[in-house]
């Protein structure tokens, strides 16, 4: 298995290196779909230039990276291309290993369930075979590395790639069952962009499951484990923030990074829902809608974890998707991360309802983004509404994609417990509906 992965990595690195050398690199790094004010490489360089001038990078409103990023690139600025390629490779390998491990567990669980005769007889079609699962890890790595979104993001040197690497390492350490590393990487991801905070529920559920601790609010062992994890998470978060404070000597970065993410002062167009909404918002409703939109991102954590408490990895996928759709400054790099998980759910394809439509819309929107941007910004023959319409459509397509996978997942689970060919009371073939 190592050989195809190596080959894949080589291909991915070659593609990226070739694009770095081409004239497209400059063009790509200016695209608003690929870089956001939070992740733009231009702004990292600006932060470094401000440091050189003796001005705090957080005294202005151009630089919004965390202090660790600026100190990382203080040393690595000449090797930026290698760093970003490495980040992509790390993400892909981490996802590869974690999916491999996850599949092993899925298979083992399935075996126990089969041995215990827990599946209805007509569900044999739904049982997954090791043969079809063999190539899934490789497909995941391929989906990440060869996804045009990832390639664009990497060529633009968007620091989103680094965030993805941290999240992938978090997933890997969680699936491997390493509590400490999982907490550390989760705190790093949170430190980078707040939103991964919602992944802690999924991580807890997974680790509890792995250690055979039942999720029972009245059990001491449950609370003890939660407290341990929270302590590790908060402790490492505290250490990281404290470290940033000592590197910088001031707390300026807190409002400049987290205030910037939460209050959305920069309305530069992107593929998300925030920019045009808040550009057109009536001033006295601004705070209200800001709260609504930000709470919306975190809101799904609790109901999703209750519904999916047996399936934390699917929960991670759902959370990543929700974050990348509803976050304040999304880029295509965020989308690439959750899309990498799609091959893991390839067994759900028979239950997907409108995958063809959704993928067509996603493809068409991706092609229309640059076209309408050009018409608005350069040609002047369109206005902002055109670009806005495409972002809306793109987000609707993403929402449909995610909810479709969620539906398919729930439906398969239902079939696994109730049988695949359901009958009505009168014996005719039944259709399943949500009630």
């Amino acid at each position, binding site marked *: 298995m190592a050989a195809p992965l190596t080959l894949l990595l080589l291909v991915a690195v070659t593609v990226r290196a070739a694009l770095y050398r081409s004239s497209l690199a400059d063009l790509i790094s*200016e695209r*608003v779909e690929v870089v956001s004010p939070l992740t733009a490489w*231009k702004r990292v*360089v*600006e932060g*470094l230039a*401000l440091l050189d*001038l003796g*001005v705090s990078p957080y*005294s*202005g*409103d*151009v630089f919004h990276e965390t202090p660790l990023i600026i100190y990382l690139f203080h040393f690595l600025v000449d090797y930026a291309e290698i760093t970003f390629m490495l980040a992509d490779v790390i993400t892909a390998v981490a996802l590869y290993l974690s999916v491999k491990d996850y599949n092993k567990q899925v298979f083992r669980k399935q075996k126990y369930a089969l041995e215990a005769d827990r599946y209805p007889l007509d569900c044999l079609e739904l049982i997954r075979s090791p043969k079809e699962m063999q190539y899934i890890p490789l497909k995941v790595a391929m989906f990440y590395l060869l996804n045009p979104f990832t390639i664009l993001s990497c060529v633009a040197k968007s620091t989103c790639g680094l965030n993805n690497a941290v999240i992938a390492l978090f997933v890997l350490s969680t699936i491997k069952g390493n509590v400490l590393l999982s907490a550390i990487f989760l705190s790093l991801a949170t430190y980078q962009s707040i939103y991964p905070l919602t992944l802690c529920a999924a991580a807890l559920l997974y680790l509890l499951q792995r250690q055979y601790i039942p999720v029972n609010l009245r059990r001491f062992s449950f609370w003890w484990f939660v407290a341990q994890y929270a302590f590790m998470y908060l402790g490492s978060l505290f250490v990281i923030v404290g470290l940033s404070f000592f590197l910088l000597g001031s707390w300026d970065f807190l409002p400049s990074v987290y205030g910037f993410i939460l209050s959305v*002062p*920069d*309305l*530069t*167009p992107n593929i998300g*829902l925030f*920019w*045009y*909404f808040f*550009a*057109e*918002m*009536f*001033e006295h409703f601004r705070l209200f809608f800001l709260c609504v*939109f930000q709470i*919306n991102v975190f809101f*799904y954590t609790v*109901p*999703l974890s209750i*519904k999916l408490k047996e399936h934390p990895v699917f929960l991670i996928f759902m959370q990543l998707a929700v974050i990348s759709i509803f976050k304040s400054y999304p880029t295509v790099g965020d989308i690439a991360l959750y899309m990498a998980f799609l091959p893991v759910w390839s067994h759900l394809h028979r239950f997907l309802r409108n995958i063809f439509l959704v993928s067509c819309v996603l493809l068409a929107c991706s092609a229309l983004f640059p076209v309408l941007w050009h018409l*608005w*910004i*350069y040609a002047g023959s369109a*206005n*902002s*509404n055109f670009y806005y319409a495409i972002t*809306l459509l793109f*987000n*609707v397509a993403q*929402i*449909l994609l995610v*909810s479709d996978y*969620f*539906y398919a997942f*729930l*439906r398969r689970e*239902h079939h696994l417990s*109730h049988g695949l060919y*359901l009958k*009505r*009371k009168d014996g005719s073939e*039944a*259709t*399943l*509906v*949500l*009630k």
Partner: protein
Amino acid sequence: MAAHRCSLSALLLIICSLLVFIVADSEKATLTGDHHATAVDNLQTVTETEEGAAAEEPAVEEERRWEETVVEEATADKEDTSAPETVVQSSVPQPKDDFQEELVIRPLHSGDIYASFQFRTLWETDFMRGNKVSHYRLFPKSLGQVISKFSVRELHISFTQGYWRTMQWGQPFLPSPPGAELWVWFQDSVTDVDGTWKELTNVLSGIFCASLNFIDSTNTVQPSASFKPLGIGNVTDHRFLRYATLPREIVCTENLTPWKKLLPCGSKAGLAVLLKSEKLFHSSFHSQAVHIRPVCQDWQCKTTSWELRQTLNVVFDLHTPGQGKLEWSLFKMFSRTLTEACPLASSSKIYIDITDDPQGEQFEVSPATHLLSQAMVLGDRRTFSVYDLTQQITFGTVRSLNLLIRWKSSEGDMLRPLLHAERYVAGYGLQTGEIHTLMYNNHPYRSFPVLLLDSVPWYLRLYIHTLTVTSKGKDNKPSYIHYQPSKDRVRPHLLEMLVQLPPNSVTEVTVQFERALLKWTEYTPDPNHGFYVGSSVISSLVPSIVAMDTNSTREQPLFSSFFPCKEESSYFMRVYTEPLLVNLPTPDFSMPYNVICLTCTVVAVGYGSLYNLLTRSFQIEEPSPGLAKRIANIIRKMRGVPPL
């Protein structure tokens, strides 16, 4: 001869390095002291050279008479030389307040006429003392109250319509950027400078009927080096300085009327009767300013007095109504003639610049005057015809003075200004752009340092790492950079740097920016007109033209022409570039409701579909019974019979 040249160039080198040193030092507090020293020296040289000039002149024109006193260099830029000169003036015994007025008229090479009015009120008083000053004579009460209420140490305000074309018109006596400019030094006793500044701008807005109330933190900066106090005082901590420009401000009659009311004679008598707004605003360039500063009262500077200088500069384009015959007169320009000086004025004079035409070949001035005066203006030695309005003889028998200049030939070329700058925005589209500032040093062999100040609004996000300074194709690293990045909706970018301009070169400063999308309420009423970016300010000690004249064709005594003397070798100059007009991407202003509805719909679709899947469970669809059966069941239920 070669040896002479060698030593000369060596000397020049030393002076250049000295200059660099001085300007580099000028960020520090030592500046004022330095200036006083040089200025005092300067004064002596002026008298010296004047003697020299006087010695040669009589041979040429016997009948012309030189004015007795040194012409007060009110017209020259103040920072360099004027403070001690005023000292000379005021050393004459005088009352506690004093008013002077003058008008300088300079025919420009482009055929335009440049008229510069200056009115100066000096008052020996102390606004800052505890007891309130209540008796005002010449000094306007409204401004006096502003000074004492807001603890202002220096106040400079200018309103300008049109752009001064340096390459056609040469240097103005008092430069000002298009629109409104306000800079104020506060006393160091002020604790809340920002609050005081806010109040002050609102009060001034009322006094001058201008939109100065639009000055807020988003267009106010604190330059660290470019704007030093022009009056006495050695506090140069830039915490007490505020500088703001409103490039969009339109200047018109409603600004002129309150400005005229500050004059002791109003527009009733003296030179101010010429200030008729219908003529003044029918011009290529119009600039009016008020400068308040403390100055020395005597040589030892034991007592200080407040100086209020009101200036009005205007450039008339006389080509259009000229119909081939080029002539102008006071009446034609201002539709008024002069009949008397302001009775309150201690001096009231009109100067006509005849430097380019000492023999009367290109134009003739009538009525002729025999009073001549010479002054160092902006590093150049100029000759003026003087008309003293306090003398009855000036008005002649008709009891009115209507100066008239008739052009005979229009050739002759202007000495190119030594320092000149221009600015533009490069790039296309509404995403990014690049600001180019070009600074020309036209001096043939001397380089000099300039301070460039740029204040860019926050919605053009500058990327300082893209800053390049090139001259003659080579990288020219600024020796000092002060950069303050912007904060969204709070403060603008401030970029100040010290650049050495090589001789005879163009220095190009470029910096890239990104255009922000604003909230729909933050756009101006005509958003597609674009947004103004105020002028860059270039401040410099420029080598003087006189010192440049080594191969002079003019007859000069040999003893005066060998070493370019240090005092004359440089003068202070400020150059403003064009303001920029930049377009920003705009949202569609007509559909806030639609956007709110549509985006909320998408969020609701997301929420709804997840909610659906989270709260419902899969069930087998049972065929629902028909309507008739359901009604029958309800009836049966009411009857208490089991349903069908």
